[in-house]
């Protein structure tokens, strides 16, 4: 590939277009295929390409038990335009949407394909995720209570370790829900939410309140990634500057569950690959996977935007709101829409939309470099990317 630009991550790749569904509790008007296709058609249109221009498809979603279909990508092959092409199914727990984006990017970076479609979905209304995540295997103590029950003790640890005041969680929820009200695709639109109303909402998993919790959504997201030539030909693509994935075991002796080593390692690799030395100064907008509001300050620290124990200060100072130093989740984030398997790819897509200038009413002025982030499992799987308006 003489003349082709390369970086430490292989050949250059760019997001050419993104698409997503309207996210709601129950998309009873479509099948799983129809749901995916809605996002795909929007992404293809946004990228200005047709299905025939796609060389390969990568599909991500969370556990098959959510929809009761084993490897649903098989039955979706026609609908997602994969028939006759290579199709890869990624599953890395809640981070899967992000991993789908990373794997799709790597197919281009490796020089294997010119244009790849990444699609991720979850149709939570087909079953009940709380049930699927709380199946009690024999011999164990049935104290598990879904994702909220899993994460709430670690949120308590964060509050204790950092000394963060109690209203921080409510502030994040208010910011994200108000951002979500500007996003036509968001599941929840709550422009009038206040810190007081959040603090008055029921405590589901003490210390996590109802309004600090993500909704349960049906939804899909799709992203078209192209090679350097496709990026050059596109109108303002989002160039992929860096990607990173890291994993650690769910539990091990001495594991830091509040500021996990895998997240720190992924962020360090990401910033190094992107040539970023001061993320707070150099990243213009971040879409971070925050399913429970307290994870915003936790991930700000984990990602290196703030020193350990200091992330909540950025929140309290309003720096993560649109107009602040680092707008976080201008789309409304996972707190406003959570089609689990798609949530990570939505973060990646929204970060691309920002640097492409296509984020509509939640556009951050002048955004040129953005972070997309996802995590999953017991805060043990991480996938991230940095996209930019400028070619690396």
């Amino acid at each position: 590939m003489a003349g082709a630009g390369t970086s430490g991550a292989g050949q250059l790749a760019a997001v050419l277009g993104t698409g997503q569904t309207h996210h709601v509790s129950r998309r009873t008007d479509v099948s799983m295929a129809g749901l995916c296709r809605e996002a795909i058609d929007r992404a293809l249109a946004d990228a200005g390409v047709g299905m025939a221009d796609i060389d390969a498809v990568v599909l991500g979603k969370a556990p098959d038990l959510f929809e009761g279909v084993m490897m649903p990508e098989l039955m979706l092959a026609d609908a997602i335009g994969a028939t006759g092409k290579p199709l890869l199914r990624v599953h890395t727990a809640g981070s899967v949407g992000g991993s789908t984006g990373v794997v799709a990017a790597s197919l281009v970076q490796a020089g294997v394909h010119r244009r790849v479609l990444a699609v991720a979905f979850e149709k939570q209304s087909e079953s009940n995720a709380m049930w699927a995540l709380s199946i009690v295997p024999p011999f164990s103590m049935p104290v598990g209570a879904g994702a909220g029950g899993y994460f709430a003790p670690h949120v308590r640890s964060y509050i204790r370790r950092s000394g963060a005041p109690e209203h921080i969680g409510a502030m994040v929820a208010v910011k994200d829900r108000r951002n979500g009200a500007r996003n036509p695709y968001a599941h929840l639109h709550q422009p009038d939410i206040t810190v007081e109303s959040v603090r008055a909402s029921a405590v589901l998993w003490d210390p996590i309140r109802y309004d600090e919790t993500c909704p349960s959504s049906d939804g899909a997201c799709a992203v078209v990634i192209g090679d350097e030539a496709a990026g050059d030909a596109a109108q303002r693509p989002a160039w992929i500057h860096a990607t990173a994935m890291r994993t650690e075991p769910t539990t091990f002796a001495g594991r830091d569950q509040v500021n996990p080593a895998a997240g720190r390692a992924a962020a360090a690799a990401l910033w190094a690959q992107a040539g970023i030395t001061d993320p707070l100064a150099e990243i213009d907008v971040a879409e971070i996977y925050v399913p429970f509001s307290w994870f915003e300050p936790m991930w700000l620290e984990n990602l290196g935007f703030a020193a350990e124990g200091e992330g909540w200060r950025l929140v309290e100072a309003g720096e993560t709101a649109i107009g602040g130093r680092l707008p976080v989740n201008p789309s409304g984030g996972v707190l406003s829409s959570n089609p689990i398997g798609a949530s990570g790819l939505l973060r990646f897509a929204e970060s691309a939309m920002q640097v492409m200038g296509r984020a509509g009413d939640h556009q951050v002025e002048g955004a040129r470099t953005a972070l997309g982030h996802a995590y999953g499992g017991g805060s043990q799987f991480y996938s991230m990317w940095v996209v930019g308006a400028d070619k690396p």
Partner: protein
Amino acid sequence: MNRTDIAVVGFAQAPQVAETTGTTNGVEMLVPIITEVLETTGLPRREVGFWCSGSSDYLAGRAFSFVSAVDAIGAVPPIVESHVEADAAWAFYEAWVKIRTGQARTAAVYGFGKSSAGDLRRVLALQLDPYTVAPLWPDAVSVAALQARAGLDAGLWSEKDMAEVAARSRADAIANPYAQLGDQVDAATLLDQPYVAEPLRAHDCPPVTDGAAVVVLAAASAAEDLCEHPAWITGLEHRIDSPVLGARELHRSPSTAAAAAAACGDIGTDGVQVAELHAPFSSQELLLRREVGLPDSARVNPSGGPLCGNPMFAAGLTRIGEAASRVMDGSADRVLAHATNGPALQQNLVCVMEGRD
């Protein structure tokens, strides 16, 4: 050499057995074989550049069943890792892509499955269309039988041909210490047995198998340090067909043909000495030989193949490992491996590997 040169440098597999007493997260099967393959290659555990695995939640009956398998790796400090909900041959593909990007020099790929934990025939019905097909619970053996019949009706093979595939596989498996089945039996005797799903008899179907496999890949800059005779990957391609059983020509596999054509390159299958085909049913081997276009001289499934041990989600990766081993042990120069996912060979991968001496 350039950075697109990548080779298989190590392979290990767990014994293929009807039932392990181990957990569905595969740790007991994975710990020894990961240790073995790292020792054989001399690759230190914490220097593996990328880990990737293939497994299924529905095989284990639990969401996130692959998560605990990470215990077998010793992922502290954190590792670069990914997982596919598919046969681990697709994890192998993801790892190959990762090395091609230059982001890793080595990768360890593993697959595992404890099929005995559930009722495999029923579980696999959940791969079918959930609206118009799966509610009838067509079992995997019956679906394969429809495919076998389509080939019989088309005159592409006979029940005797199928029995001969089974007899040859089982005789070959005698020499494979990991195989679940293996014996000397002639085709005529097999044809006297009753049908389990006409036109399939027991010998035409794979056993239910628990098992695991691991393969190590390396970029050119590392391969020769890890293995004396690396199996260089000269083609790796996969494709998928429509899921609609009644719209497919079941005796054909366009996805296999397309993947094989792309993987084999201009010289086609000339010189392929050994082919390991992920054909869980005897008729599928006959189908795949045609679609891949194997020369008559090629030895097919000298390991005994999936008819003698079919560890779900590891069997495709095992084919790659077995075929690569023929290059690594110096007994072949050009080999081909095939892997499949889904009902009636819906999704197919072909990997061509060569020695370089």
